[in-house]
Each structure stands twice: as C-alpha cells, then as structure tokens.
C-alpha cells in the first residue's frame, strides 16, 4: 500500500482542462490545458491580448469559464470553491487597495477573509510588513503610497495566509530595482519552501531567470510550453534565447 502511494504522482498544484472564455464574438481563451506540479515557478508569456490575465482571473475564481475546469491542489474550483480558494492567493497587475485604510488595517481584513486566528495573523502581518520595508509606513493611509509600495503591500496581503499557490499578474511592474530584487528573492524563497507560483510577465529576462517552466500564449491558446531548453527545441532554436523563441512562436503564421 505504502509503495503504491509513493509511486503515485503528487497532486498537481494547478490543473486546467479545456478552459474557454468568450466575450461576444471574441475568444479570449480557447481551450487552455495546463498542469503545474507543486514547488514550481511557472511563467505565462504572450503578446498583449493573448489571454494571460483572463486565464489567471479564471483560475482565481474571478471569471466563470464558458467551458472547462480548474482544479487547485486536487479541489475543483467549480464544485468546491471555498476549499479550492483557501490555499490560493492572487495579486492583479494594478491591485486595488483601500486608500483610506492603513497597512495593518488592510492586513487585518485579509486575515479575516481567510479566517486566520488573530494570534497567528498579527505577528505574521508585522513580520511581512517589516520584511517588505513597509513597517515605517504603517501609520500612513494607503492612498499616500507610490505604485511600487502598493504592489508590495498587495504581495504582503497575498502571503499573509501562507498560500500554497500564488497567481501574480505582472508582479514586477512599477517596482524599482531594489524592490524588484526583493520580490524576486521572496518568490524564489516561497518556491523553495514548496509553494507554487504562476506569474505573467512581459519581461522575458525575468521568465528566463526565474521560471522553471514557461508557457507561451497566443490568441488564447497555449502555443508552446516546457522548460527553456525544451522550448528552444520545439521552436527549432536550439541554443537560442527565450526572446528568439518568443518572437518565433508569437509571430509565426498560424498553422506553421
């Protein structure tokens, strides 16, 4: 029995089967199939309008897919949304925070949404604010923060309930070099600790350096997927860079 269990593949952190989303006559996502194992950093790449954000929003439960299914750590988002969302965190590219709240008040609300016990949530919130360099700003209203500082606070809120799967839409946009480094280190640490990260980015260098696997979307379809080396081979660009692969895959005529 134990041998059998050991030989079973681990439950995927995220599995999407045939996800479709249409807006009128426009198909934003056209049958996305994806499986991501725990402990990976996965990067979604694609030109503007490729369906990256729509895919993330469907996985986060913010958009209902027209067809298909999302499973988070073995739980179906459609059938058991509460339990499926419990280990999940999502940070949009332009997070909306409450301008007239202070950082600790925001963290308190996030902790309450995920039903965290106060004895656990408070020290964790303080530690995250300190770790992300927000402690000095704890008395100020969020509306006075710069875009980068807001992004860091949103990330702190996302990490508060110790998620196992994080969805990040352009997490480095608006961050200065030091803050971007801080966030990258934090994400790498999160993945080393067994967490899974799915992020979208336009910065190919970030995907190349950080991501274990990369998926390239075009016109709502996953047109290439795998490790960097595999992608290069798929695109016939052995020894090339991610930029070469990206341009080849996203600019090639359909069907080729």
């Amino acid at each position, binding site marked *: 029995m134990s041998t059998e269990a050991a030989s079973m593949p681990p439950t995927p952190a995220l599995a999407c089967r045939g996800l479709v989303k249409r807006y009128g006559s426009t198909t934003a996502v056209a049958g996305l199939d994806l499986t991501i194992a725990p402990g990976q950093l996965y990067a979604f790449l694609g030109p503007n309008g490729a369906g990256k954000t729509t895919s993330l929003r469907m996985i986060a439960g*913010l958009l209902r897919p027209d067809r298909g299914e999302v499973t988070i750590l073995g739980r179906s988002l459609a059938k058991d949304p509460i339990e499926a969302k419990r280990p999940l965190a999502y940070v949009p590219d332009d997070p*909306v925070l409450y301008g007239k709240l202070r950082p600790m008040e925001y963290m*308190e609300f996030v902790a309450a*949404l995920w039903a965290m016990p106060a004895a656990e949530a*408070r020290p964790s919130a303080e530690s995250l604010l300190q770790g992300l360099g927000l402690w000095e700003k704890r008395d100020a209203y969020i509306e006075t923060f710069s875009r980068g500082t807001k992004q860091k606070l949103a990330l702190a809120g996302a990490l508060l309930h110790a998620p196992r799967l994080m969805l990040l839409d352009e997490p480095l946009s608006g961050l200065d070099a030091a803050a971007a480094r801080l966030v990258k280190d934090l994400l790498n640490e999160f993945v080393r600790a067994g967490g899974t990260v799915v992020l979208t980015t336009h910065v190919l260098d970030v995907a190349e350096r950080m991501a274990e696997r990369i998926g390239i979307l075009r016109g709502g379809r996953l047109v290439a997927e795998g490790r960097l080396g595999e992608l290069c081979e798929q695109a016939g660009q052995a020894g090339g860079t991610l930029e070469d692969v990206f341009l080849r895959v996203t600019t090639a005529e359909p069907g080729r």
Partner: protein
Amino acid sequence: MRPLALQLWTVLHNDVRLLWRELLASRWSLLGNLGLIAILLALAHALAIALCVHAPHPPSLHVEAGAWLFFGFIMLGTAMTQATTLLFERADFHLLFAAPTSPHAVLLARMTALVAGSALSVGLLLLPVIDGLIAGFGLHYAGSYLVWVELAGLAAAAGVGFTLTLVRWLGARRARTTVQVLGALCGATVYLGIQAPGFLGEEHRPTAERLIDQIVANPLSLALARGGRGDWHTLLLLGASTLALLAATTWLLSRAFLEGAQETTSRPTRTHRREYRHHWRQSLAWVTFWKDLRLILRDPLLLSQILPSILYLLPALLGLYTTLGAATLAPLSVMVAGQLSSQFALVATAGEEAWDLIRMSPAPERRLRLAKMAAGMALPLALAATLCLALALAGRPGLALASLGIAGLCAAGGAWLQISHVRPSPRHDVVKERLKNSPGRLFGGMALMATGATAAGFYGHGNWFAGGVSLALCIAGFAGILALVKLRALVTPD
C-alpha cells in the same frame, strides 16, 4: 503654428465630446436617450406656453430677477464642479501643454467648455420658460437667450476663479470636496429660500417675502431681468462684462498653470505624524464592519455627497414643527436613519473597492454583506439615537424610544434593499449611481421611510390610532422587503 481658432477647435471638440459622454453616462442615463429628453422638453414647452399664453400679464421684474438668480446659482454650482474635473482631474495637460499648441488656446477651450456645460445644466428648465415667455408676451423676451449665455459665462468665470483660489489654498482633492459641499449648500439654500414662506407660518410670511425681495432686487439680477426683456443697453453691458471677466479668468488660469497649479492634484490628502495603535480583531463580521465604517468616516468627499441630502427634508420638517413642536424630532430621526442607512449601505457594497480580493477569498459573502449592512446603519442610527435622546430630554421618553425602534426598522429595511442587489461602481460615483436602482427598490425604500416617519409623527401628535395603522403598514413593508427581496449574486462585468 496653426491658427489660434483651429487649435481652439481641436481642444474644444475633444472636451465637448467628453463632457457630453460623461453627461449621458451619469445623471442623464435615467432618461436613457435623446428621444426621452426631446419628449420631456416638448411637454415642458407645452406647459410653459399654455401658462404664459393664458396669463393676464407678464411676471414682475423682481420675479424674473429671482428666477435668474436661481438659475445663476445652479450654473455656478455646475461650473465649480466641472472646473475641478476639467482643470484638475482629467490630467491631460501633460499632453496638451507638450503639444505645439498655445496654452491660451487650451485654456480658452476649457473655459468655453465650462460655459457650455453651465448653460446646458439648466437647459431643460430654462428653455421652455424662455419660449413660453416669448409665445405669451412677445419677441422681446428673446433677449433671455443672450442673458442665458452671458449668465453661463459669468458663472463659469466665477466658478473657475473660486475653484482656483480653493485649489491654491487646499490642494485639488480637498478643493473638490469643498466645492461639492458648497455646491450642495448653494442648491439647498436656494431651495430652502424658495420654500421659506411656505413653512414659516402666517405671522412670519410677510417678513420672509420682504427679505427674499430685498435679496433678488440686487443690481445684477435686476440687470439680468431687464436684459431678458430685450433691453439692448443692458445686454451689451452684460456681454462686455462677461467677455472681460472670461478673458481675465483665462489669463489668471494660464498664469496659474504655467506656475504648476495642476500639479497640486497629487498632493496627499493627509499625512499622519502620530503613531497609530491598531487593535486587531478576528471575526470577519467585526473586521468588515469596522473596515467599512472607517472608510465612510475617513472620506470627506463621500460625506459631502451624502449628508446634504438631509437638508432637503428640512422644509417639510420645519412645516411640521409648527404643529408638533419638539415631537418633530420623532419623524426626523426616522427619516435620517432610513435615508442615510440606505445611502451608506450602498456605499459600503456597491462602492466596495476590492471586490476581486473578496471574491477570490474563501469568505462567505452573505456574512460579509450583512456586516456591510451594519456598517452602513451605524452612523445614521447614532444620529437618530442622538435626536431621540434630545426628544427624551424634552420630556417625551416614550416617544423617543418608539421612534428609535421605528428608525431601526427603516434603517434595516433601506440598507437591506441596497445590499441585496449589488452592482459595483467607482466609489466617487456611487452616490449618483443610486439613481440606477430599480423603481421597485426605490419605491420600497421610500414607502418604508414614509410610513415609519408618519407613524412617529402621529404618535408625536397623540393620534394613537393613525400612528398604529402607519406602524402596522411600516412593519408589513419591512416584512415584505425581507420576504420578497433576496440576496442576489454580485453583478460584475466579466
């Protein structure tokens, strides 16, 4: 460089197009489309023409002066609000000033758009009146068209000058709040002034009428009235004054903007120097309640949009005061609780800024909405309790207790109607968005508040039977709302 007129047209065309679309998307959205506006205009014209044709003589000069003063106030309020939007919120000056376009042309276009916006804000009311006067009393009243434009110009110049001064003193954000409060107070003052003779009682009525007459008989409003009757000298004088004032305001504006007045938009509202000690709570309901209450109390702009709505209840209540005396506080507490709870609950739900965060969390949405309902009711019920305490101290403790109970009922019913069907809107527009409530919900809320206030009023008057009937209707209405209006899923654009 292109001729100034062409530059002016380029900027103006874009401004007017945006203003028109904002107008259609906001307060006129209820009217739905231009066809409805046309029907309303036709009906108003028919009424005005019928009244004027059958009137034995034209209105007195003082009445016309008062009317122009009234329209001037409305246009001034519009000009101030639009000035903050067009000059400080649209944030397109980096594009316009960086282009090879004269800054004077840009600002002149903005002023022209403001004049047009101010003039249009009273169009639905003023146009039928002018046409009625022409049809009833002669073509010389066509001078009113010119006065309309001139008054819009004066209002725009005054509004911009006033807004600019406020922005210099307070920064753009606080100036916007102040402008909204002042605009609402201007409107309420005119409204209360017109209603005053009706509620002051027979003995004070002549004094009030004399006072209003003195106010309207100022040289400017009399000149406007004469101009409206086609006095060419007055029209020319008014036109020249308007042009001079507009030119001076444009010059002032260009000076201010070259000095960087538009940059004040980014000035933070408030900085906190003292250390804040946060008491951490755990329960989702409590945390949400305090979060939403804080967000309401810390937003002066929102409060400035909502609180003046109570002012419009005053004439009726002052009228009641002559009959009920201190017991007027009983229906007042019910109205305050019902009216404000509904609006604050709307703000806490439809104006929620982070629905995405809530929807992707595993939190039960029903409990969250109920906490928002409680947050919306907290401040209005505190106000109602204060009024009831005053009533108890005035020697009517039983009435105070009953009123507080009815106020709670009306507050809960009004707030439930808002949290049951949530259509997220930008927080700064949420108060305007309440007009998009379905007629059923609008009627339900108003009927509940009216029956509750009537019950409190009858009890205050000592009429137990009528009070009991009204209270029974109020309770039945509340039960009906709870039974018929169920919590519906959030309406979000996919």
